[in-house]
């Protein structure tokens, strides 16, 4: 399992029955434009990421240093890169 497949699985869990994306989730998939993730769904995703990747991956703290526009422009690849950097 790569970090990307882990995250793609968590995203699908969060979106649940609303899932209607035909295309596969890639590093280039945008949370806002492509996935249309709601802010409260992003909270659920953060919770699941914490449970999956552990305390050393402080996703919420990492996001808090970003300006609003950066958060909205966030791509799956940015999160994968962040998680991998915490593991190394």
């Amino acid at each position: 399992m790569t970090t990307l497949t882990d995250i793609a699985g968590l995203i699908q869990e969060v979106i649940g029955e609303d899932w209607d994306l035909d295309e596969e989730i890639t590093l280039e998939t945008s949370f806002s434009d492509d996935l249309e993730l709601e802010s409260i769904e992003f909270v659920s995703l953060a919770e699941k990421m914490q449970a999956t990747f552990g305390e050393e991956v402080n996703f919420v703290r990492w996001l808090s240093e970003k300006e609003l526009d950066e958060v909205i422009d966030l791509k799956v690849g940015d999160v994968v890169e962040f998680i991998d950097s915490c593991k190394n």
Partner: protein
Amino acid sequence: MPHAVANGLELHHQLLGEAREGQTPCVFAHGLLIDNLSSWYFGAAPIVATTRQAICYDLRGHGLSSHTPDGHDVATGVADLLALLDSLGLERADLAGQSWGALICLRLALEHPERVRRLVLCEAPLPPSSLEEMTSVLSSDADELLKMLPDSLREAFTSGKRRALKTARRLERLLTETTLVADLKAETDLPDETLRSLQHETLLLYGDASSCRGVGDRLATLLPNSRLEVLAGGHYLAAQRAPEVGRLIQEFLDG
């Protein structure tokens, strides 16, 4: 998804950081309608949580808390927050609120001063009619309301598909199927004398382009132990200027 049973409903909340000996936890309350705990949770709260526990919660009818047909007035908001503090075992907390959440925190501090250490009021609209957005809320016009958002947020809410539909459905429910509009309309100003009686150290945060910018000056004059910081930004300051808001709150609470 942690939920506390408080005041007869389930309040969704998220804890950031561990409870620390000698460090009062800070509870964050968000604004109405399009807002939920995420504006604090992904913004200022994790910065504050590096030195004290931060607790973000969804107001009733918002985010993942119980959806109720009524109780969107400040007094019920205070009762909900008190019940949340009780259920979390917090005798005393720091409180930080954005917009309507700030009114709830302020009223709680005035009515139950012993439960609050320090107070952060971000864009508190006082009277509530000082907020330009209020006109569109009172006319239940969701489209007008979305127009008031910062550009980047508005695009996210109106771009078209799943999320935009869910947002529109949520706004419509709150505006037309609950007492929210009537509750807001009935909310009155706090008298100057009441505001002068607040003893808590208070940080006031306002956006220079916000329609309630003037409220910051009024509160800074009336609240005896307050300090006003004006940041570049509009009413949705906690989300819009999150890193800076987080650092200001942290410095204030740690100082």
